[in-house]
């Protein structure tokens, strides 16, 4: 609807039938129409208000957008093509000042607030900016043919991980950016392998494609910043022939507020936040950093977690020290821990009844990480489910006691692990034969214990790490606060 349809001089009222105040003042609008030139922009019904000659149906909300309408009814006076006065809602004294005696509204209350403009309904403002305004987006626009499916266009341009992505349209990107107070042009960091500068806007675009909701964006930004910590060694993790990829563990109240899953099937499919936050990181590395499988990503086999691998810790037990706190984040803060995780290895123990029994048993499972005869060839995440955790809790064991006991239980005589021992060629050098060897780094880095999972099943999960972690000063799991 072009601006030419609005009066050069006269009154404009923006209204909608769905607003009780607009319905209340319908007689006022009729009275004003009789008194002089009046144009009503109706947002939701071309027949409302009745008895007014010039009703323009603003179903596209273009005029409401250009006029900056925040609530209805809004009365505006134009003179010489310029707005000179405006009042929002019904307030007799103000309406009388702007529109004269015809706006007296006999029998109406002196004042009644209006309703929100349809142009400010959730998600609508961003769509209107994308259509009629200045988006401020700086990323290159890629035209899509009229008959092309944008999802297929994303595939053809190599922007996907093999699954369909949500096409990054301006309105979706604007909605995503509303999830953070950070400026779109802020540089978050340089993404390996190409070390390409990545803005908040690029993060938002890839978060859209991953399927994130705007409220996930602060988490995605925190995850990315953790991935760019030099200690995490994202470039090396990307290039490796090993299985591992980034495993994301979220702690803090934000996990609950965005609905992350730390319960039944926490490591599996079905939760949007879990699925899309992990995926967003992978898409950023692929699209911004240029980390393409088969090119710089040289994984021999990879693992399904390289699509996405993200879950939240179950922090419901006040006796349990959450992972992020163990790694230095104050209680109550939001945090991300990034680990170089290979696939999930299920661990079954339905017979242990004491903490001591279960620790010995878990150590047997953990010895399998990498190879049973290799040590310091990567660390591990141990996901304790409620049933296994209950054994420790009933025994009065804290996280730290479990960590220490596991550390001791994961020592082995070097003579059992050297090359050729147990008729297996793989192992450690002969020079270690007389030493006691640690399977992993000491706590808290060797075995990262995290609680998650459903209430049934005497299981736990072991997630092996990456041999790159063997030089602790160069490569480790990283925990950072989400700002």
């Amino acid at each position, binding site marked *: 609807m072009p601006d030419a349809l609005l009066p050069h001089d006269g009154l404009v009222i923006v209204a909608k039938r769905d607003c009780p105040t607009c319905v209340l003042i319908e007689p006022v609008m009729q009275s004003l129409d009789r008194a002089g030139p009046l144009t009503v922009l109706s947002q939701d019904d071309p027949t409302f208000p009745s008895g007014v000659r010039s009703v323009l149906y603003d179903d596209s909300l273009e005029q409401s957008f250009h006029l900056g309408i925040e609530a209805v009814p809004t009365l505006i006076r134009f003179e010489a093509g310029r707005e000179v006065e405006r009042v929002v809602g019904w307030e007799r004294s103000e309406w009388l000042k702007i529109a004269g005696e015809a706006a007296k509204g006999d029998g109406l209350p002196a004042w009644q607030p209006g309703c929100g403009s349809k142009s400010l309904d959730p998600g609508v403002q961003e769509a209107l900016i994308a259509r009629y305004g200045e988006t401020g*987006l700086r*990323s290159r626009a*890629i*035209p899509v043919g009229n008959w092309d499916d944008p999802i297929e266009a994303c595939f053809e341009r190599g922007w996907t991980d093999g699954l369909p992505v949500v096409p990054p349209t301006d309105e979706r*990107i604007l909605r995503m950016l509303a999830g953070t107070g950070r400026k779109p042009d802020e540089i978050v960091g340089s993404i390996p392998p190409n070390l390409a500068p990545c803005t908040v806007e690029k993060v938002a675009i890839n978060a859209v494609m991953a399927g994130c909701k705007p409220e996930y964006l602060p988490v995605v930004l925190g995850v990315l910043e953790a991935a760019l910590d030099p200690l995490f060694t994202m470039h090396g993790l990307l290039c490796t022939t090993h299985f591992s990829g980034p495993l994301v563990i979220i702690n803090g109240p934000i996990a609950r507020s965005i609905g992350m899953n730390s319960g039944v099937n926490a490591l599996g499919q079905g939760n949007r936040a879990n699925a899309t936050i992990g995926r967003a990181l992978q898409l950023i590395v692929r699209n*911004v950093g240029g980390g393409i499988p088969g090119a710089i990503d040289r994984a021999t086999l990879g693992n399904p977690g390289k699509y996405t691998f993200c879950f939240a810790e179950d922090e419901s037990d006040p006796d349990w020290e959450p992972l992020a706190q163990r790694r230095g984040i104050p209680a109550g803060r939001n945090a991300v821990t990034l680990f170089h995780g290979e696939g999930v290895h299920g661990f079954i123990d339905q017979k242990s009844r004491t903490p001591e029994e279960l620790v010995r048993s878990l150590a047997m499972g953990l010895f399998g990480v990498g190879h049973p005869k290799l040590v310091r060839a990567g660390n591990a995440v141990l996901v304790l489910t409620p049933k296994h955790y209950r054994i420790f809790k009933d025994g009065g064991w804290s996280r730290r006691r479990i960590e220490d006991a596991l550390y001791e239980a994961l020592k082995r005589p070097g003579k059992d692990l050297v090359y050729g021992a147990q008729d297996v060629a793989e192992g450690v050098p002969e020079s270690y034969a007389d030493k006691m060897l640690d399977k992993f780094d000491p706590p808290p880095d060797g075995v990262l214990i995290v609680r998650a999972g459903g209430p049934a099943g005497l299981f736990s999960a072991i997630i092996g790490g990456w041999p790159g972690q063997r030089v602790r000063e160069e490569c480790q799991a990283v925990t950072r606060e989400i700002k």
Partner: protein
Amino acid sequence: MTYVEKLRDPTAETAPTRRARLAPPTSLEGKTVALMDIGKSRGKEFIDRLEGHFRNAGIATRRYAKPTNTKVAPTAVMQQIAAEAQLAVIALSD
């Protein structure tokens, strides 16, 4: 049917927006050329002539055809061409 007019580039924007065509091969030696008849009139005549030229030059060819000129080639035919040939000539003319 317009879904969207444009998307925003999620990449570092180091590549041109228009994807480059594949570079033509420097030589046809050892390659197999697919000769695709889309079913238009005299297409077969054109393919026959090309086949003769390639044969005289010692270049291997394989012939393919669409079941009907009114519809796009079946996926199976496209996949077969991609698996068996490195280049393709399509007889589009009437």
